[in-house]
């Protein structure tokens, strides 16, 4: 178990260090996230009342689009120079590798969510009525998206059509996360009278299943 955690931490730290050096997510994905918010504004005629009403949904669609890019980056880091072969040859268990990769994506997603939250407050005029619910939703959804994304990144890795295949594989599976997180935000931002905390239950179930199932399935994948 200690070895497992140490390995996972090693992989996560490695990915985050690479991100700190290359700044791909910070310099490319984060501006893209804000751009998406602005484009929604253009598309919906920049009417702040409309934007505010739809802010939760637009927020989570933007998160999913950014997650696709973050996962692509996470996969390409290992494939650029055959590092994946090295990882398969190392003593790191596939489950620890999975948790490590997912943890790094999780951290990046949380940073993007913070940025996007600031974005909807400034651009759409949203107000946070329940900060605790926002934080809990953001964290649980990030776990769910990071784990599912990492698994599907591994499923599509090594294929010539990875970039185009990943969205069609990943996004339908994440439909419950999109719905759940959006409804929880509806409550937290005071947009609709729904019980946001009940939705957290659904997100929690998804997050737990994605973490455990992903670690398990990743073992079978790397063994191939």
């Amino acid at each position: 178990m200690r070895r497992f955690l140490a390995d996972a931490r090693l992989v996560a730290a490695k990915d985050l260090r690479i991100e700190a050096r290359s700044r791909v997510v910070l310099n490319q994905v984060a501006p893209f996230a804000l751009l998406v918010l602005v484009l929604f504004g253009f598309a919906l005629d920049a009417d702040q009342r409309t934007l505010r009403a739809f802010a939760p949904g637009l927020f989570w669609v933007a998160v999913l689009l950014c997650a696709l890019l973050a996962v692509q980056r996470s996969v390409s880091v290992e494939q650029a120079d055959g590092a994946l072969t090295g990882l398969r040859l190392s003593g790191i268990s596939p489950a620890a590798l999975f948790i490590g990769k997912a943890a790094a994506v999780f951290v990046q997603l949380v940073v993007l969510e913070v940025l996007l939250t600031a974005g909807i407050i400034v651009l759409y005029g949203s107000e946070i009525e329940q900060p605790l619910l926002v934080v809990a939703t953001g964290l649980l959804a990030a776990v769910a998206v990071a784990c599912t994304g990492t698994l599907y990144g591994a499923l599509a890795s090594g294929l010539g059509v990875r970039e185009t295949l990943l969205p069609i594989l990943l996004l339908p599976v994440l439909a419950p996360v999109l719905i759940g997180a959006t409804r929880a935000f509806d409550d937290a931002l005071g947009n609709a009278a729904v019980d946001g905390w009940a939705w957290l239950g659904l997100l929690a179930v998804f997050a737990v299943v994605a973490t455990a199932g992903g670690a398990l399935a990743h073992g079978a994948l790397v063994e191939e």
Partner: protein
Amino acid sequence: MTQAIASPDVSTGSRGSRVLGVATLLGLATLLLFAFGPTEPDIRLHPTTGEEIGQFDAVRLLYLHVPLAVLMYVAFVLCAVASAGYLIRRTPWFDTMAHAAAEVGTVFCGLVLVTGSIWGRPVWNTWWEWGDVRLMTTLVLFLMFTGYLALRRATVDPRTAALRGAIVALVAVLDLPLVNRSVEWWENRTLHQKSTLEELKIQDLTLFTLMLGFLVFGLVLTWLLLHRFRVGWLEREDAEHGIASAIAERRAAIDEGDVDAAVGEGT
């Protein structure tokens, strides 16, 4: 019968599958007869106003739509079970079955969406009802299995395709209850549960035709699965045959002089 080289007329049909095929066609004809013949259109009287309400003749689409929907789930569950079987046993039989069930299931799923939409237009007065649980679940299911088939098509190595496909299929089927839950809570206004079968005047003949629909489309599903499975099996045999001949070819093509020239040695 000579066993030499397969003649140009061979097919994936066998005596059994031909009997099944004929039975299926006869069944379809009977089903059409009942669906458009003796069964009554759905006409009820409104309890207070006395107006004629109901689905009228559009109900005849349900003898098609409902069996397709149920059997689509049968196909996808079969796919998930076969995928799990593949992950445990790693034999090609399970993989071929999972792939066949997924492909047939996806065709059924697409038809469920189309026929449902065509039925919904006159009955619900809309082609598409956002927030209807089963409709949204089916759409997500369709998209997930489109991805499954795309993944399999994009993967060259058969073993990789089998393994990754099995995982995707299992995730899709396990994800389904969560999709269903989330859509149900999302908008608590599902048209489906109020307006389908329970509300119909279930007459004996209506019920019989519906059951006949299950039986006939069950035969259709079985026939398609059988042939699609055999195609998958043949594809595998073809690939293995190709590999066996490629090995023989490679081994026969080794040329002493070429090898020496390539490694820089004289004889």
